[in-house]
């Protein structure tokens, strides 16, 4: 869906932001572009919707070279969310969400219907919010409206630049969960720029780790955590990556059949291995019974199964 081929962006002979970067982002997946600040990840994002043009190389969106597409019509089909959201302060929430549909010339009824639909999609139920102005909303609400606005015209692609960066940590975690939920419903190709490894692991189907303008590794979170390509990636994902990795597996993924040895503690099948291990440590036991939603035992999980996952 999005493919960068040997893309280089040089601001001046001494200042190279992106160096010979090739990456393929598959349709319907979320690629988390991650790296320390100044590694060129935002530049990559801004080249996809042609806010910047590469010095050399090609960028293909939907197998078309973006350099041959009118930037304005390209951008109208790519949702864009920036860190500071950038809601239009002088327009109501309704007008903000309706911005792209208006540019595309949708009729009033369709816009109104879509706006209300989007408000619900991003978890804001109250229609009276539509008549408010961005200033009158909380930070979390504004961020949701930013996502709603980007999704308004149902673009196949969504570019997000540190979308949850400006929100307090508690609200951020909740928004990330909700966003993951939204993404599952709308199925978009997403490029998410972040410097937060936890966010990348949570939301990314793939992780693209960048350093000094180069792509160091692009793989699924499991692969990155299991086989970091070099010491930079290893340091970047943190010393506790072996434990973090457990968050990527559900108990039901690795459990073994119900055992007769009585494991008194129970854990629901949808929980992560991380949670299971934490339970074992705090209860000082070696195995747990896995239960389904109804509470009946469907399997067992032991310390060994977790360690070998």
């Amino acid at each position, binding site marked *: 869906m999005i493919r960068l081929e040997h893309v280089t962006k040089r601001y001046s002979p001494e200042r190279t932001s992106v160096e010979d970067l090739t990456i393929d982002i598959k349709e319907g997946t979320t690629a988390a572009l991650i790296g320390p600040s100044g590694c060129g990840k935002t530049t990559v994002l801004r080249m996809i*919707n042609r*806010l910047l043009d590469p010095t050399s190389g090609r960028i293909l969106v939907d197998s078309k070279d973006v350099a041959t597409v009118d*930037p*304005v*019509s*390209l*951008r*109208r*089909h790519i949702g*864009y969310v*920036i860190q*500071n*959201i*950038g*809601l*239009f*302060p*002088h*327009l109501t929430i309704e007008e903000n969400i309706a*911005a*792209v549909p208006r*540019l595309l010339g949708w009729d009033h009824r369709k816009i109104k219907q879509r706006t209300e639909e989007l408000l619900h999609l991003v978890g804001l139920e109250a229609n009276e919010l539509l008549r*408010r*102005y*961005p*200033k*009158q909303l909380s930070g979390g609400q504004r961020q949701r409206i930013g996502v709603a*606005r*980007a999704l308004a015209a149902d673009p196949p692609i969504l*570019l997000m630049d540190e979308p949850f960066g400006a929100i307090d940590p508690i609200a951020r975690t909740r928004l990330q969960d909700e966003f993951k939920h939204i993404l599952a419903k709308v199925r978009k190709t997403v490029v998410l720029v972040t410097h937060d490894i936890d966010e990348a692991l949570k939301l990314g189907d793939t992780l693209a780790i960048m350093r000094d303008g180069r792509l160091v590794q692009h793989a699924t979170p499991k692969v990155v955590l299991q086989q970091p390509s070099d010491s930079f990636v290893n340091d970047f994902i943190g010393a506790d990556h072996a434990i973090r990795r457990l968050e990527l597996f559900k108990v039901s993924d690795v459990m073994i059949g119900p055992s007769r040895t009585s494991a008194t503690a129970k854990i629901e099948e949808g929980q992560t291995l991380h949670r299971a291990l934490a339970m074992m440590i705090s209860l000082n036991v070696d195995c747990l019974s896995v239960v389904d939603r109804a509470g009946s035992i469907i399997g067992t999980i032991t310390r060994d199964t977790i360690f070998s996952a």
Partner: protein
Amino acid sequence: MMLATVVGWLNQHGAEFLLALWRHVMMSLLSLSAALVIGLFLAAAIVDRAKLGFIVINIVSGLRTLPSLAVLAITVPLFGIGLTPAIIALTILALPPILLNAHVGLRDADPDAVEAAVGMGMHRLQVLLQIRFPLAAPAIFAGGQTATIQVISGATLAPFIGGGGLGDYIVTGIGILDIPTLLIGAIPIALLALGAEYSLTRIERRLFSEELWR
């Protein structure tokens, strides 16, 4: 006693006075409108062009340092005397506050909103008209207000280049040392300037500080 003289004079020369007043107001309005059109157009033209902007802003800032009378004097060799050169001179006088305020307002319009607007696919003109101008409106209004006061007082000097207006009475009054004549010009000009300042401030409050989104 002096006031009685003034009132008596006004009774006899009411039509002449009204004509001078009308001319003063018209001169001010015409030059303000011209300066608004030119200033806003220039400000819009330089908003994304840093180099051109630098040149334009410096020239216009330079204009601001010229004394009003000098601006009027310069127009005489170029445009002769009469109403038109007076209006041109007043336009030059009104341009700096309008352009400089509009420039700062448009340039500093919420950069995140502008980035989002460009990123979602607005054309240059759409960004300008739908985002930058509404956000810059208070700054533009303030520039217009400053220009209005400058033009009303600047128009007092129009008689020097044959532009007429209420300044005629002041110039004549000083010339023949006749205080009542001088006051017939000075008081209405002062009232015009004060009235403009007062009503524009009211309008500004109405327009901007009561808006929900600020």
